[in-house]
């Protein structure tokens, strides 16, 4: 079950802005929970782990750097000797909390990209953009195609070289580099020659002369309109909240996120976001939503 790319681009942009603007960990946690639930509802839970693993290094770095470089905050956990660049070694609970909150933001942003990938079909995204930016889409689809071709080409050339007696498992690194050097050169030349052939093939088929032929039309379905309506509600609640400074907190000198009003407003955000999860769940389970809308 996939959605129209435009629906998901607009929704992902809303989520991205919400994540970047909010500074309250409860609000960011709500968005994170929403995405985990959505991805799991669509049965793509493995994508969460593969996406998050790319951001782990960055998240750890953020948690370490913040408390080391900023010493403000009332709750001092540790105070020690003076170090170069860092200054006095002092770790505060507020600085640690800020680092943790930023790491949560990073994970959240990573999951927005995974969410978009799960919710849309890559070919549909290409078709959608090719309507408005055909040169860009053509270049990108040719590049992706080239990456596949080159992977196979490297194996083919390597097999030929092995048959000719080249040893790629030399122990000395210089000898190994010398063995690999002709492969790179052959691949480089053959792919450039191939690019000219592909260009001539495109030219001979009349590329760029008239309007492009389209064999399938990408259309917005009922569920896309439903999702866009929910997106508008999420956006409205987000803007209303921002105008009354909800979801924004200070970490220094002390954490100001315990105001009951600020904590209660997150319920509205949650209701708006989880109605989107409900729609997704419905689209997966209810035949009416799945096939008719």
């Amino acid at each position: 079950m996939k959605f129209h790319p435009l629906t998901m681009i607009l929704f992902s942009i809303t989520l991205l802005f919400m994540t970047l603007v909010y500074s309250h960990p409860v609000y960011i946690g709500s968005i994170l929970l929403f995405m985990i639930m959505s991805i799991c509802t669509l049965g793509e839970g493995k994508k969460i782990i593969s996406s998050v693993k790319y951001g782990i290094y960055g998240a750890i770095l953020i948690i370490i750097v913040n408390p080391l470089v900023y010493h403000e905050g009332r709750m001092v956990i540790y105070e020690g000797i003076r170090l170069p660049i860092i200054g006095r070694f002092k770790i505060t609970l507020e600085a640690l909390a800020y680092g943790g909150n930023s790491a949560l933001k990073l994970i959240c942003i990573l999951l927005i990209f995974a969410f978009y990938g799960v919710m849309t079909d890559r070919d549909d995204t290409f078709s959608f953009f090719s309507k408005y930016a055909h040169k860009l889409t053509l270049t990108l689809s040719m590049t992706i195609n080239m990456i596949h071709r080159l992977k196979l080409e490297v194996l083919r050339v390597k097999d030929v070289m092995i048959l000719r007696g080249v040893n790629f498992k030399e122990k000395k690194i210089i000898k190994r580099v010398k063995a690999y050097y002709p492969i790179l050169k052959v691949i480089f030349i053959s792919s450039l020659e191939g690019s000219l052939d592909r260009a001539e093939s495109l030219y001979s088929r009349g590329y760029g002369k008239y309007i492009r032929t389209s064999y399938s039309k990408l259309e917005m379905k009922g569920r896309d309109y439903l999702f866009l309506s929910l997106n508008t509600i999420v956006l409205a609640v987000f803007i209303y909240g921002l105008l009354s400074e909800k979801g924004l907190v200070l970490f220094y000198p002390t954490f100001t996120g315990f105001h009951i009003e600020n904590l209660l407003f997150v319920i509205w955000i949650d209701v708006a976001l989880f109605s989107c999860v409900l729609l997704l769940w419905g689209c997966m389970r209810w035949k009416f939503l799945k096939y008719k809308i």
Partner: protein
Amino acid sequence: MNYGLLSVAVILICFIFVFISYERKKVSVKEISLIATLAGLAGVGRVPFAALPNVQPTTFLVIISGYVFGPFFGFMVGAFAALASNFFLGQGPWTPWQMLAWGLCGVSAGVLKKFYQNPSRIMISMFAFLWGFLFDYIMNLWHWLAFVYPLTLQSFLFTYMNSFYFDLMHAIGNFFFAYLFGKDFIHLLSRFKDRISYTEIPVEKIKNLL
């Protein structure tokens, strides 16, 4: 002010302008195909070296593309290499920044050619070495702007210090790729550039000559 959000907005607006100019530009199919091929080569180069942290021939290939074909071409090769290869390695908030960093790398190589028509092997290698650091510095910038508070010189230096060894590996890798393959690949690409370049002579001009 939310500098992380501001930087994302600025970078997206810049890309929209660059891509609109690419759409409007008179680009031949041969150029499109060559951009795709070089971006594909640069992108696929990230995969076999994934075991060595931050050692990849991508930066070097973007540099020679920009050097031979000019700044705009170099930018497009760099941007597409990042975008396409991340379809396999994983898209994330780093994608626009990688596109920008490799794009600028291609632009700077194109500008370099305007000043040095025939640079020595060591000069190209040093240029690639420098871009090893610059690339990672651009990548660190968003990290610092979006996730570190306060934005002081101290936090800036500390963020950059943390990635020093990664940056150094990238720079050393670039140096060797450029030193070993730089000159040869530039000659090869220049030959291809000559093959796809042509000059249009109006019919009237030929008639006048006859």
